[in-house]
């Protein structure tokens, strides 16, 4: 009798566990979708207040993003840099590293790719590969500054990254405006050689093989995060560094490693823009792809698959927004507003969840005590 009751409660408990698991998954998709829906609703209110028809405006935006091959290619072109930067940020977030310095790491990656693109000559594949490697290394080097400060001295990486971003913008701006400036009216480096160019798919748009590379990279990172020992370590350090340390994982090493890998991906984002789109490093070419990467990572809940969809969404909003601006009196700024509202909603949800979790821990904490001497 007692046995059967135990078994019954067993089934009950496992049902609860599974239900919780499914709910967790559903929430992962539902919450970002709800944030997007709510943002569109608020946007509709703004459009209506401007005296425009929200349905027509959204229709032109949607058609501008997806209707016809030309529009769709443009959307993918906008999506490509966000795939890289979104992946860079989400990978770091998952490892417990708030790398919001992707913008700066991307700029140095771009500059490095631009320099290698015109200073050496090599066969096509080798030249592209060398430029990409240079970009990855440059991104990692710039990421090493917040990494070492956080791991060794416990300096908050958010602050360091925020301050390094404008420094990167101004430094790369200086190089492309003075010592490395190509003759002519614009502040840019020399055009890269044809052998370093990433192949564009069509004559009318700049979508290039960098897009394919981004998709491959997403797949590779899915494997790294879910199927390798390193990915396992990064995830645990991100979730609970005390637990990771107790299990023999080097927490400082893990943090530095995650920062460097994230910086490499950020560097590749810059390489794609220089080798595939602009064919030279232009001062201030980025409209803030690194920052949009933060939005992508938040929408994606830090999963590579999520990054693909979130980047596509933001890419579509941006490319459709241009068409909407041409067809209606609603300007592209609406898209920036939508992005901001989405982030705000997701951040508010995150704040509420972590607040709840902290209260839970505080309550449960009466039964436990902390272990001293924790690192980083």
């Amino acid at each position, binding site marked *: 009798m007692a046995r059967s009751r*135990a078994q019954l*409660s*067993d089934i*009950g*408990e*496992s049902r*609860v*566990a*599974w239900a*919780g*698991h499914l709910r*967790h998954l559903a929430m992962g998709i539902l919450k970002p979708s709800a944030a997007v829906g709510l943002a569109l609703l608020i946007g509709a209110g703004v459009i209506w207040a401007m005296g425009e028809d929200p349905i027509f405006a959204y229709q032109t935006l949607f058609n501008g993003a997806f209707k016809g091959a030309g529009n769709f290619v443009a959307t993918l072109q906008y999506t490509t840099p966000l795939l890289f930067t979104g992946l860079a940020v989400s990978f770091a977030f998952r490892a417990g590293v708030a790398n919001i310095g992707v913008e700066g790491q991307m700029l140095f990656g771009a500059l490095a790719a631009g320099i290698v693109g015109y200073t050496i000559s090599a066969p096509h594949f080798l030249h592209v590969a060398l430029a990409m490697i240079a970009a990855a290394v440059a991104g990692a080097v710039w990421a090493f500054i917040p990494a070492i400060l956080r791991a060794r001295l416990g300096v908050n990486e958010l602050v360091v990254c925020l301050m390094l971003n404008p420094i990167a913008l101004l430094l790369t701006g200086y190089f492309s405006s003075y010592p490395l400036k190509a003759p002519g009216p614009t502040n840019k480096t020399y055009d890269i050689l044809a052998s370093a160019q990433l192949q564009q798919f069509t004559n009318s748009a700049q979508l290039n093989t960098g897009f394919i590379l981004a998709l491959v990279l997403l797949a590779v990172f899915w494997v790294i995060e*879910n*199927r*390798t*020992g*390193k*990915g*396992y*370590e990064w*995830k*645990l350090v991100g*979730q*609970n560094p*005390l*637990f*990771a*340390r*107790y*299990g*023999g*994982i*080097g927490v400082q090493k893990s943090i530095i490693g995650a920062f460097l890998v994230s910086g490499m991906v950020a560097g590749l984002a810059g390489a794609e823009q220089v080798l595939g789109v602009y064919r030279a490093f232009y001062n201030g070419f980025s409209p803030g792809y690194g920052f949009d990467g933060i939005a992508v990572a938040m929408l994606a809940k830090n999963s590579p698959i999520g990054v693909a969809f979130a980047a596509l969404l933001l890419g579509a909003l941006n490319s459709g927004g241009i068409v909407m601006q041409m067809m209606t009196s609603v300007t592209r700024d609406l898209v920036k507003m939508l992005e901001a509202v989405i982030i705000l909603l997701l951040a508010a949800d995150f704040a509420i969840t972590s607040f709840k979790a902290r209260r839970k*821990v505080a*309550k*449960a*904490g*009466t*039964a*436990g*005590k*902390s*272990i*001293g*001497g924790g690192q980083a």
Partner: protein
Amino acid sequence: MVNSVEMRGIVKKFGTLAANNNVDFSAGKGEVHALVGENGAGKTTLMNILYGVIAPDEGSIQIDDRKVHIGNPAVAIGLGIGMVHQHFKLVPSLSVAENIVLGSEPGSRGFFDRLAAMRQVAELADRFALAIDPMATVQDLPVGLQQRVEILKMLYREAKILILDEPTAVLTPQETEELFRTVRNLTSDGKTVIFITHKLNEVMKVSDRVSVMRAGRMVATLNTSEISAAQLAEKMVGRSVLFQVQKQPSEPKEVLLEVKDLRVMSNRGLEAVRGVSLQVRAGEIVGLAGVQGNGQDELVEVLAGLRRSTAGDVLLRGSSSKDFNPRQVREAGVAYIPSDRIKVGLSLDAAIWENMLLGYHATREFNRGGLLDVGKATSFARELISRFDIRGAQVGAPVKSLSGGNQQKVVLAREFSHGRRVIIADQPSRGVDIGAIEFIHKQLVAMRDRGCGVFLISADLDEIFSLSDRILVIFHGEIMGELAARDATVEEVGRLMAGVNRRGGDVIG
């Protein structure tokens, strides 16, 4: 005696856990009343109720024989109740005087009268003989003086009842002496001081009366002069045998773990472990008894590779493991059950299989050239789930979906696999239900019988007595004595826990 505080029938439940279970508490005017008990006994909950931070589910409170309802701390302050928390609530960049008057600043028409504040604070400090510079910046002050600022802040608000929550936890011995002097000054001025602590020598030294809490209940309230520290220790850790684990007499074999004259510093830079030596042999369970905060945490952290020692050595099967990191400790065959499974022993958001894999994820068994064999890891986890009877566990579900007892079984399952020989079990059954306690105890005995050496650290005398083959008692970072479990008595262990040695001499510093 006039009671300035009287709490009756206080009940407070968090979920199913009764943090306060029908507690009566009273403190007289002008007395120092010590409130003692282990961590989690419900002391802080009770005082948070008195201070209006937590609302009780049941019960009534009287202040100066008047029934009151304390809905929030502002009401408590209005009633003359002040609380100094373990973590100070001061503004580090402001001056002492500014901190003290903050919230009820002198001045008029919205302007702050800094001079008046300085003068008032200086007068207040003078009146209670609490020397302090009102113009000093708080962040420049040593911890003892910061605490003094907190106390002055309460006095500035004319508190008659002061609650000090583990006030000595952050103090040096000299600062502690100063604090005791202050406390006596306050009571001679007619104030009531409620002193929360789990250090027995402080109770004996400073209090007039003492109330003992255990597992949410008030066990006893006594005059301090009528009880010894040893009796107090016994009351604190209790003796409520629920079951006895069946075990054969031990057959100790070779020494697996040896600690030689180990010295360890605490986070505060004080010597927490002061020359501890001990041995754990294969096939025996050695229990380390002691009131919490007597160096157990620091000792265990060194054994686990989480903290560095300053002197002495730790030998694993005869070879030194000094300055090993946690990975090296693991590879040397040490299993470690940390006292806090939520913060250290598990990652609640990670899946059960991921929690069970920790420490083995880099071994050839589960990792080939950097690639994780997830299939093997999950089937390994499934095997452990059935072997350790972890109820309601799906390998892919997060650990937080399990109950406390089943979470602890996940820790045990992981640590007891892969043939570890030395087991360090720190409070292995804290906060789990009785069924899980029994299971955990049986597992520990089974590991002993399989030839492991088990080092059990527990503040619970029941656990120590029912599992140990030998009992060591730690007090103030030193081993006070060693007893064979079969002829040890609770009274004797209690005496040693309170720092009184066998000859009856008092070694309290």
